[in-house]
């Protein structure tokens, strides 16, 4: 994940409390989604950014996952994400995200 983005994630979770922060991803692939999710939960796996060794355990979802999709106005979702749903491999993204969440998320209800 971009270093500037890591810095912002760290600052925002310090400001609002990690339990109040949710990360939403839009990555095109399961693998990239998993890497980003790992970064904001277990720390930067590439050891490059401010989140290196920082286990925030933030709640993280991909925008195409049903858990968050169901909370979004369906017409807005269709307009903004509808087409990419057809393009992305939603199932494998969900599976990858589930694995990361189960292992590292600290604030799942």
């Amino acid at each position, binding site marked *: 994940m971009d270093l500037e983005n890591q810095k912002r994630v760290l600052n925002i979770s310090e400001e609002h409390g990690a339990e109040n922060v949710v990360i939403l991803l839009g990555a095109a692939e399961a693998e990239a989604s998993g890497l980003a999710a790992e970064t904001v939960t277990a720390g930067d796996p590439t*050891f490059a950014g401010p989140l290196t060794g920082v286990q925030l355990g933030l709640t993280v979802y991909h925008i195409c996952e049903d858990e968050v999709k169901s909370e979004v106005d369906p017409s807005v979702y269709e*307009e903004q994400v509808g*087409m*990419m749903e*057809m393009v992305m491999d939603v199932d494998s993204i969900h599976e990858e995200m589930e694995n990361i969440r189960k292992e590292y998320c600290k604030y799942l209800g």
Partner: protein
Amino acid sequence: MNNFPVIKGSSYVLAFTPDMIMHSGTTQTTEKVVNPDSEYLRELPKHYRTYEEVVSYIPNQVYIGNATYDDLGNTPFPFYDKKWENAKSDGAFGSIVDEEEFYGTMHISDVFELVLFEPEFAKRVKEKLEKRKFFTEAQLEKLIADKSTASREELERLVNEEHAEGLYINLTELVGVIKRAHDVDVNLSAHVMLENLVAKASNVIALIELVKKNNIKPEDIDYVIDCCEEACGDMNQRGGGNFAKASAETAGYTNATGSDIRGFCAGPAHAMIHAASLVHSGTFKNVVVSGGGCTAKLGMNGKDHVKKGLPVLEDCVASFAILVSENDGIHPVIRTDIVGSHKIGTGSAPQMVITALVGEPLTRAGLKFTDIDKYAPELQNPDITKPAGAGDVPEANYKMIAALAVMKKEIERSQIADFVKKHGMTGWAPTQGHIPSGVPYLGHLIKECLDKKTKRAMIVGKGSLFLGRLTNLFDGVSFIVEANEGSGSVEHDIESSNETVFKAKGTSTKGINVAYALEGSEHGSQEARLALKIAASKGIDTVLCDGADAHSQMEKLLGSGEAQAAVTMHYPFPIGVSTVGKVITPAKGKPMYIANTTGTSDTDRVAALVKNAIAGIIAAKADGVERPTVGIANIDGARACAKILRTLKDNGYDIEFADSARADGGVEMRGNDLLMGSCDVMVMDALTGNLMMKLFSSYTTGGQYESVGYGYGPGIGEGYDKLIMIVSRASGAPVVAGAVEYAANLIANDWKAIAKAEYAAAHKAGLDALLSEISSAKKADVEEEAEVVAPPKEVCTEAIAGIEVMDLEDAVKTLWKAGVYAESGMGCTGPIIQIAPARLEQSMDILRKAGYIE
């Protein structure tokens, strides 16, 4: 012949630069700051490829034109462990140079004595580059000149003490440096100069390969547009430019100028549209779009490649050049009329982006998604992006286009995979930002169009503007390329594709032929052909007169009787001819005739209005309105005109007056009546009429394109028997077709007989007497002026100055009235009145009293 510009040639170049991965790639330079002792930095060099491996890598052979993208598509994924048999570093479109050759090109591209080579290295590079035949002897000599070389110790000192950037081979061997170009200015630091020299040098090779591979003379190029992603300039103009001209200079394009266009990865697509427009407009004949590569993106995804045990696949700097030229009837054309753009208000949702770039231009052009044989979005090599978790970028783009086609109900959801296969390509381009953005396909596309394998392709460029932190916007533009309709030579194209005769279609053929002289239309000849096709569908034959002699062709057709009417954009009518436009009024869609003139109906304003009214009645009747109602626009002279028309009616000329729709009624028409069409014939003067015609013809489009109505109408005057219909340069196909239809109606209803009868009736009702009353009233004024006659001539040697030049003649007359002979003239310092010396004082008095002098 359509005049769309063509893509005449292309070149593609790769420079294998393994040592720059470590020293200049941002993934590595960042890692060196953050984790200087990281395992990644230690492992990285073990994953470098050799030059031979890079040359035989199939995606690279596709890039330089030795293999096709289908060859790549038929290769089982991944590609890095496969080799292209018979791989060569010299390809159909360009070449793959090695690191030493590339350093040499950077040295030759440097004009500021910033690059220094170790002497033995310099000699070796010169020998290598001689074989490539890129450069002149003088350019090669520079490599080994005393000023260009330095000992290894000096090179090391420059790196360690003077902030120079080192040029390395074999991981650690220092063979050259790039010095900083300024001690303080970071914009001219060694780091920035290296990046910019890399961009320039790679561009230079592409420009040289472009002329070599396509048999073009470098001096024929007029303009070069660079579209890379670097910026050059000093601290006072950080992005001043101009990579284009700097590169073209080294490439020997002596007659070219140029400039840079930036748009992140969309830069090349933007630049292609600019180039096409420059050529289409005739501003320049041969425009090259080119872009050098960047060091920053070398090894960008290196961490993933190393982690997965792959070679570092981002090890080449890439560049390209494309030549856009005037239509030669052979090469594929750029449809400058079908361009897609991501607008500021488009939004960033993928379907909005794809709609703006792909869906909207297709809809506008009346094309389906499947009418495009091949789409060329970003063509990144999936071998590079997939292991990095970024997926297969071109494939994702094809799926998005297919998904949009599904949403538009043009294909079924189950057909997405087929669509992607048929209209897509396997990506082969290196991830050098702007380089993969649609343009790598152009070389292959030229060949496919010439081989008649591909008819139509769409090039889509997309750019991540948000990375600049000045906006959150995304960007993109697209354009369509089509195989040239001409099949071999210019002559052939002119003869066979230049359709000029349009025969009536359908059952209602009217047996009428109209000539259309196309001279100066803002919408071009294809729009004209569309207009005549519409007319043909309404049963009217037409002939298109195109070219510089359009008007004389038109006159010939009219003279021989081959055409009974003509439509044209301007015509020198004799004095006394009115023109009667026909518009559609917006309130209820009711047609209305605007009786005015594009010429001069009469030199007197009121007489002109009266004559326009009669012409309006004639045109309306001849167009099929039995008893047209006449209103007079409420303009200067309307009352006087109405008075004369009433007298004519009282004397027996049958005029049906209209009544204003406003509460107080009357024959004078207000603005509201214009919109409502309260009368059939709206009488106006020339200038107001012209304003109204333009307004009524283009109110649905916003101005530039006249889409509604029947044009500015026929010229009608007493004894004038040619039927000339006027349209404007802004008139679109519907208006031109309307003018043809209007002419056909006038002919069918024998407009000449109607005109003759109307003029006879008006004369009988005393038209001549009424018009001469106006002119005799005027003459009285003129005569009063004329009463002043010059006194007997005297020799004038004295001068009176200080009179306003506009008042000079009046001042002379004032003196004449007082019996003083005077002449006007021009002295050294301004206008003067000349006078006999004896009259001087008297004259000064007279002029002073009259207020001409002080």
